């Protein structure tokens, strides 16, 4: 089991968001990206081990190979397999990766551990949620069953939220993740209205312990979304911005699976690179019992549901 929390990720220097730099500068930014990945991972303990990537000028983080081997994966140890898939993907250039998620609705018990893990990982303030678990009751008493549908951002291939942004503050990264540039977002919330999945929430700059004698320190701890350190004072971004799930980019860059994946008690959430035919996610997404939400809208979600 991966044991790593965001508090172990060191504060990174104030640099532009990784993928924005990549978009704007073309190939040279890959080098910069790798440097940032390396910076992120420096000091990060995955399995209590040395960093995944060294800060080098190499095109591909070949130092991933320096990681100690994972315990041998067994068919029933899905986390280890996904971890290996992730490492393999990270060795590829970013534009060759296609991150995707699969959620097995038959296994989800509606414990909301993923919701809480996400909140803890991303230091989400009141009213901001990236991965609620929608509950649906089917049938009538006494023949009732309940279904639980975790709903992260769908990271759509054709995201309706992107073209509506008036200031180009949200865009699709080369690896398929839809990113929000917190420093560009003006907080008009047009993207929130445009999302068919209700996956974006507005940060109203609130605190859980507002109105109490003292604001608790955990409230002002920085989040590390998009590989940067975002100190919280209730006014500076991401307060006032639209926010959403980003597949824990900062964890991926450090070689870790998204928090919701590692926290799922029932192994119901899967993650990986769809471009890797050997990966678990590729295998699952090809199953006949796969569906995607609101597929008729043509958004091409990268979150698959196994039913």
């Amino acid at each position: 089991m991966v044991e790593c929390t965001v508090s172990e990720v060191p504060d990174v220097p104030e640099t532009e968001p990784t993928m924005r730099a990549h978009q704007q500068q073309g190939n040279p930014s890959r080098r910069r990206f790798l440097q940032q990945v390396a910076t992120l991972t420096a000091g990060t303990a995955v399995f209590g081990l040395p960093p995944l990537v060294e800060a080098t000028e190499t095109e591909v983080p070949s130092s991933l190979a320096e990681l100690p081997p994972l315990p041998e994966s067994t068919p029933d140890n899905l986390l280890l397999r996904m971890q290996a898939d992730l490492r393999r993907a990270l060795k590829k250039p970013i534009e060759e990766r296609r991150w995707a998620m699969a959620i097995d609705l038959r296994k989800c018990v509606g414990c909301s551990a993923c919701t809480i893990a996400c909140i803890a990982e991303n230091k989400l303030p009141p009213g901001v949620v990236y991965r609620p678990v929608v509950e649906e009751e089917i049938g009538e008493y006494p023949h009732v069953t309940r279904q639980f549908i975790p709903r992260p951002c769908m990271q759509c291939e054709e995201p309706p939220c992107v073209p509506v942004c008036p200031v180009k503050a949200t865009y699709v990264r080369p690896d398929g993740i839809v990113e929000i540039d917190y420093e560009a977002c003006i907080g008009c919330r047009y993207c929130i209205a445009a999302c068919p999945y209700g996956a974006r929430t507005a940060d109203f700059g609130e605190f859980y312990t507002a109105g109490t004698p003292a604001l608790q320190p955990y409230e002002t701890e920085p989040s590390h979304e998009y590989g940067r350190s975002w100190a919280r004072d209730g006014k500076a971004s991401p307060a006032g911005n639209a926010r959403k799930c980003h597949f824990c980019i900062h964890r991926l860059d450090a070689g870790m699976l998204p928090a919701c994946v590692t926290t799922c008690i029932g192994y119901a959430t899967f993650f990986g690179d769809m471009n890797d035919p050997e990966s678990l996610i590729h295998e699952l997404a090809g199953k006949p019992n796969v569906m995607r939400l609101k597929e008729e809208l043509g958004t091409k979600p990268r979150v698959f549901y196994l039913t």
Partner: protein
Amino acid sequence: MMKVSKILLPLLLIALVIGAVGVWDRLTLGKANLAFGSYLPWGLWVGLYIYLIGTSGGAFLVAFLHYGLGIAALRRPATYAVPIALLTLGAGLLLVLLDLGQMGRFWYLYTRTSPTSVLGIMVWAYTLYGLVLAAMVLAMAGRRLRALKWLSFVGIALVIVFGGGEGALFGVLGANPYWNSGILPIRFLFSAFLSGIGLVAFAVVLFRRWQADAEDEAAGRLFRVSMLALLAFNLVLEFAEISVALYAGVPAVVEAHELILFGAYWWVFWILQLGIGLLIPALVLVSRLGRRPEWVGVAGALIAIGYAGTKQNIVLAGLSVPDFRGLSEAFVHPRLSLTYFPSLTEWYVAIGVVGAAALAFILAIEILPFLKNHEGIDPSGLTGTR
């Protein structure tokens, strides 16, 4: 100073003080005291913003009909139409500025404009339109009729762009079955014309002495006929939208319409929108009362008030239908709710901004010589007064 100005000034000053309290709250406490959230991300301010901007375009239509197309009967109303258009535009933009999560970055709308965003394009249209209006005020001050003519043509083109574009702002959102309709931009454009003409008619009747001459009679007739025609057309559009939606039975669309018709704010549709905004003014205008200028002004005011409700309904009904059944119960927080009623701060700011625009209008017509004489610019260009 006109008697009506003397009565209104203290009221508007009170509105300004109330607005100042709201703005202070917004600037110091951020968005803490705003009642909307994430699943219902726009509220009173956005509804008022689209209403005021649309009304600005409608007021401009009056100016265009006179300065651009040379309809002589609207000479006097056109004088008021330009400042009304400018001030309602300013009020709408101020409200939406206060609505931004990061107000200090508003200028990104110019430096980082996305050409794919309707909102991004709208901002440029508003800006150009504002500049046209400012130039028209200067041209009016200088009695430059030729400049007014050409500016009014540019202005009306921009009105059509953003008047319809405002509807497109909502209509292009395929995620929202209630908004996603080709009829919405047309509804926005023609309801804007209606509320704008209504407001100008009201202002003209309220603030200038109506004269029993042929010009005023013709103006009254024109207002009456145009408001009736636009009321009928808007009714047709609205009926088409509601009846088609209910008959088609797409659940999310039906739910939005049912919310409007029978939901918690049923009164906004039945009383404000249909009663005050449509039925009463229609009855006034078709009856004998409609021949009297003061009643034309009353009908205009009722229309202007009623269509403010229409825009609120469009915004809120579209947002009140959840993307997923059970989403607002999946993670419970006041910001993740589908119910909304504006907070005191929102009301304060709305009252203050609208009051400030009205106050600026009164001061303008009391102070600026080319507005003070109530008469407009003589089409012959020889004099500014009669």
